[in-house]
């Protein structure tokens, strides 16, 4: 049963991708939607099982899914669903602008599906080495997607993403190696010496020196993928140049998955050395990311880059929460990550449509969008207000929980600094959003049919986030509880 679900969740997208690669136009679209639908259903079912009756193992321990993994799986698949659902519109516009070659649609969907498969696989794997392989694979596939537009800027972004990503991920490999070395010292060269399940068990016996080094390298490596400053330099380029659905997936899920891997290292390290070492580093880099993102948000001229830096800010906050630890902050973390994923994916889609309609991504030329293209303008404003952490929204609750939890966990100053930076960032973000929505109007928009499907696609995730700020159904609450328990080191 579990095997089947796992196979469907990861395998179907891969196969559908293969199919899409050779298909064209509508068929590719259908394959993509169909494949993802299956993956989504089976993935949610799997997650449901895990949340209902605890961790599951499959394929002889190759796959182990605990609550945290299931949570990540859900996050990835839901965001992926938004991205895929937003793709046809995107491609249609490219088609209209006739910037699309014969096979492009098929290739696009194929890569997208493989990207999703990679992201979905990572939280299912037990072996940290394979986790690394999965993340590296997503890096490479997404690198192809980032440069999909073939414009000079797109190529530049993709190239930087590829090089910086590979180097960063290389560091992560070194980290994995060091961890392996330390566990080999305890277990001998067994195949499960890199399984985080085993590692958490034997953590106290691991060589502290090696574990420290391992975590440091993992922080640098997965930190690069998660867009932690100062390893974030590729992110604004890639996220702003990629096709909007890809930006949505990268920002909404890609970063989160990298953070997931880092979190696993954090848990092992914490179990081995006690919480102080890794927590302190996480807090430090979370704060640094917040601080670095701020000026780029305040003085930003490019809408999609603005959103990218907002992602850096929010991932910084999530990392901060991870470092804070403690029931409250972790609860905030688990709520924040998924709410941010949903919102950011939606806002990237809206921004993409806006940019396509107005023919520019310069904030100065997007003015008056509320009038020029109301549907997308409204979506952008609402999503921005949510990202700003204004109620009612899950992000508002999550931020409060994180900040309160931080102070509770004894990180008073860090929390205070974070609160200030967040508020300033909101000031910056809203400033630009006001310019875009009601600022002096730029060039006229090509009116674009925003059908009911689009309305639903925008309204659904946003309303989910809003409701998350008003009421948490008890099963959801229970699920988040389990996640926090795991992140609290209470069990893996």
């Amino acid at each position: 049963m579990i095997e089947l679900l796992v196979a469907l969740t990861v395998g179907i997208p891969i196969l559908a991708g293969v199919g899409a690669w050779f298909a064209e136009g509508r068929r590719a679209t259908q394959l993509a939607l169909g494949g993802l639908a299956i993956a989504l259903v089976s993935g949610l079912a799997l997650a449901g099982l895990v949340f209902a009756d605890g961790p599951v193992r499959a394929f002889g321990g190759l796959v182990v899914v605990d609550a945290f993994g299931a949570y990540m799986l859900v996050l990835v698949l839901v965001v992926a669903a938004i991205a895929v659902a937003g793709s046809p519109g995107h491609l249609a516009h490219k088609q209209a602008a006739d910037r699309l070659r014969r096979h492009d649609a098929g290739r696009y969907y194929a890569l997208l599906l493989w990207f999703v498969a990679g992201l979905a696989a990572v939280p299912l794997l037990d072996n940290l080495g394979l986790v690394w392989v999965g993340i590296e694979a997503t890096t490479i596939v997404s690198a192809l997607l980032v440069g999909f537009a073939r414009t000079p800027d797109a190529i530049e972004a993709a190239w930087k993403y590829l090089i910086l990503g590979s180097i960063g991920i290389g560091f992560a490999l070194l980290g994995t190696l060091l961890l392996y070395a330390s566990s080999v010292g305890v277990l001998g060269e067994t195949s499960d010496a890199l399984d985080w399940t085993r590692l958490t068990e034997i953590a106290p016996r691991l060589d502290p020196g090696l574990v420290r080094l391992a975590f440091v390298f993992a922080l640098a490596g997965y930190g690069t993928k998660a867009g932690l400053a100062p390893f974030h330099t590729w992110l604004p380029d890639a996220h702003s140049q990629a096709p909007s659905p890809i930006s949505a997936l990268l920002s909404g899920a890609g970063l989160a998955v990298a953070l997931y891997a880092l979190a696993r290292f954090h848990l092992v390290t914490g179990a081995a050395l006690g919480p102080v070492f890794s927590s302190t580093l996480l807090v430090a880099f979370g704060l640094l990311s917040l601080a670095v993102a701020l000026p780029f948000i305040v003085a930003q001229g490019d809408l999609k880059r603005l959103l990218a830096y907002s992602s850096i800010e929010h991932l910084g906050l999530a990392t901060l929460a991870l470092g804070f630890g403690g029931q409250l902050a972790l609860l905030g973390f688990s709520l924040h990550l998924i709410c941010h994923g949903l919102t950011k994916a939606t806002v990237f889609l809206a921004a993409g449509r806006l940019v396509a309609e107005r023919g520019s991504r310069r904030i100065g030329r997007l003015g008056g969008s509320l009038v020029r293209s109301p549907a997308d303008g409204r979506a952008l404003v609402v999503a921005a207000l949510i990202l700003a952490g204004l109620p009612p929204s899950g992000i508002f609750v999550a931020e409060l929980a994180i900040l309160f939890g931080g102070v509770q966990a004894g990180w008073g100053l860090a929390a205070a600094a974070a609160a200030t930076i967040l508020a300033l960032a909101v000031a910056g973000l809203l400033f630009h959003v006001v310019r875009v929505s009601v600022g002096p109007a730029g060039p006229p928009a090509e009116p674009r049919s925003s059908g009911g499907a689009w309305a639903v696609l925008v309204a659904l995730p946003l309303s989910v986030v809003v409701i998350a700020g008003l009421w948490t159904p008890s099963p959801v609450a229970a699920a988040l509880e389990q996640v926090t328990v795991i992140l609290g080191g209470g069990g893996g």
Partner: protein
Amino acid sequence: MTIDPQTASEIVDACAAVIVVLGVGLAATRSIGRSIWLVAIQSALVGVAAVMVGLATGAGHLLIGGVLAIGVKGVVVPLVLGSILRRSAVRRERHPILGPRASLIAAVAIVFVATAAADGASLGASVAASHALPAAIAEVLTGLLIVMTRRKALSLVVGLLVFEDGIALTAFSLTYGMPLVVELGVLFDLLIAVVVAWIYARRMLDVLGSTSTDQLRSLRG
């Protein structure tokens, strides 16, 4: 045939020594073509070391991994890179950020730093820390040095490969390699990475007309 671990580690050390020398050469040369073949040999040597150790310890996964490594990194990758080189007009690193002499000095310095670092590295008694570790660290650093000081896309890829070799060597020096699945995965990823790099290098040639990363500075702020 069987070799006792002692000899195995000696072999690894020998390979490591050669690899270090090649690394210095890589840092110094300005000809991209030459650097491609140098890195190919280097990668192959890592593979050879793996095979030898595999024979020594009788660990099958090392044999397979090593052979594949020789095949992929020693043969396929150089061919791919070569094909781009043939397309591109410029085949020398004209104005590297760090001149050849300077990089030579830097490379040598790196070796010493690496040695010192490896001695100081508190890797614990758990690992039979062989002399390959300094070499590994040196290669990692050399790779970074190349990527940071070259302008041509190909040179960057070469640097990346050196970096990868360094990591692979680290794997040997710490623990005789990693579990097979991981090894294979790493190799596979590396291969795809190079292919993607190849794709983008081609696009650069098509769209920008050269593989120099100097034009890639329009995305700022």
